[in-house]
């Protein structure tokens, strides 16, 4: 696929196009620190996850990257460009898929994709070819000439993704790109996201979906209350949980959280789910405890397995990825 990158003409090699945020702080009013000294860097080709509960400050950070907000302190740089001093460059070099629905009610899908590509500076023929490739790759050809107002949420989402990536900048920011997308096309979407990385874009993936992020990102940052509280590869972040297991109980509806044995290392309640972490050596005790709860009618089922990134996320933020604050 001939994927063009908007800023290639600047004569920079891909390696010089690293994204760096250094000490980015955004204070609303006098006291509300939406971002607090966030520093991170992303190399071209990396898919970088930004995880965190609602209100953690992810969107504020993204809006500073794309030039819609100005940091109170700190620097944001992309290759040779200072994105804080030059918001026009930020808009040229970064493209953004927001979580909200795209405003394409009165656009045909293919038209919306091509128009956005042209607005982003692509030539007519290249944009048309790339739009066709995306439409085919995401299997949305059946809707290419359908008006946006008639699209289902998932197809609309894929059309939005295509609009944003038809002529991508150096940085592609995707906020919950897979929302509403069916499982089959979700796989096609993740393939395209990986391809963006392979073609030299730095991809920011903003999501609550920890499980999906674990499979898709090269590195990730967890943001909570405006601060970057953890960063690394999924494996490195899970390293602290080696030797532990995840014991998840589905409690009967409206049941109170049962008394926890002393060997439960941590727990969080999310709806009917009670998610606990136990030592590997205590697996048998865990199973007996869970079976006892089921026997007494307090739980309906349980699952025992390896700890996941979700457990790291819960431990660090006190939230589940379903985003209800955990009752930890």
């Amino acid at each position, binding site marked *: 696929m001939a994927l063009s990158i908007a800023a290639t003409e600047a004569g920079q090699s891909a390696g010089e196009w690293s994204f760096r945020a250094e000490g980015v702080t955004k204070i*609303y009013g006098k006291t509300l620190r939406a971002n607090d000294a966030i520093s991170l860097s992303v190399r071209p080709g990396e898919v970088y996850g930004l995880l965190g509960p609602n209100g953690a400050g992810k969107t504020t950070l993204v*809006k500073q990257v*794309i*030039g*819609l*907000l*100005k940091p109170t302190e700190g620097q944001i740089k992309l290759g040779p460009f200072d994105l804080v001093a030059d*918001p*026009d460059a930020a*808009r*040229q070099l*970064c*493209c*953004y*898929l*927001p*979580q*909200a*629905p*795209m*405003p394409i*009610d*009165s*656009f045909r899908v293919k*038209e*919306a994709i091509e*128009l*956005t590509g042209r*607005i*982003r*500076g692509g030539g007519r023929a290249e944009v048309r070819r790339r739009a066709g490739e995306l439409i085919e790759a995401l299997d949305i050809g059946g809707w290419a000439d359908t*008006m946006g*107002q008639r699209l289902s949420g998932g197809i609309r989402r894929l059309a939005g993704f295509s609009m944003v990536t038809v002529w991508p900048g150096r940085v592609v920011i995707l906020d919950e790109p897979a929302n509403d997308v069916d499982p089959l096309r979700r796989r096609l979407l993740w393939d395209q996201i990986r391809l963006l990385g392979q073609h030299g874009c730095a991809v920011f993936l903003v999501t609550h979906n920890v499980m999906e992020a674990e499979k898709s990102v090269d590195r990730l940052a967890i943001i909570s209350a405006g601060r970057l509280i953890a960063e690394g590869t999924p494996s490195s972040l899970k390293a602290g949980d080696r030797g532990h297991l995840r014991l998840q109980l589905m409690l009967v509806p409206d049941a109170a959280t049962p008394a926890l044995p002393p060997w439960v290392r941590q727990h969080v309640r999310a709806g009917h789910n009670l998610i606990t972490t136990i030592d590997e050596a205590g697996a048998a005790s865990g199973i007996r405890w869970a079976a006892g709860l089921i026997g007494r009618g307090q739980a309906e089922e349980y699952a025992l397995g390896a700890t996941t990134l979700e457990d790291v996320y819960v431990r660090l933020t006190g939230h589940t990825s379903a985003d209800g604050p955990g009752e930890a």
Partner: protein
Amino acid sequence: MTRWHLASLRLWIMLLAVVQIMAGAGFVLGIALFFDHIPVTAALFVSTGVPVINLVLVGLILGPQLVAQQKLQQSYDFVRSLPVPQASAAAAWYTVCLLAGLPAVVVSLLIAEARYGFSFSVSPAIAPAVLLTAFTGTMIGYGLGHAVPNPMVTQLVTQLLVFVIFGFTPILFPAWQLPHWLAVVNWWFPFGHMAVIVRAGLTTGLVAGIGSSYLIVAAWGIIGAAASAWALGSRG
């Protein structure tokens, strides 16, 4: 960006055209129903005021409502993230508003000539008058849409503007028919002056003081453009 704006209005561009023409024809024909025999001067004032309404309706009223809708639906950030210079985006929207108003202007004037039996003395001055009136209407609306942070306030203000413009500004009638204090207040606002400069391009000897009217309309256009530039350039 002009194509983007045109496409975004596609679903209701026909309805918009019909509403524009009906609004124009409605005023031109409807006012005559108040009189047994409408005086020629009154008919001229109405007929030469209606183009102003046609020219500002989209930019001043519909434009800010569309921006407010984008803010409510949270798609505003996507539109703002597109790499389009502010001046180009504003110029594109101005072009669309002008194109949306011009056909209704022509139809309204033709209906007026047919209904009242007079002919307009169209002079070259009509060109700058139309361009400036549409520009100022569009820029005030643009500023209102982008500079007012709360979209609900924007929607309320535009509805208030419709009420005020149709009822209490000297667009369809001469300013001297207003109470003195209201005429004085109106002098500082652009809407009556828009009618003066458009009227000057369509008639001979009906209006005076064209220079100050041009200045005031232009000043409001600049204020609207500056408010838009400030709001779009502001990074909170």
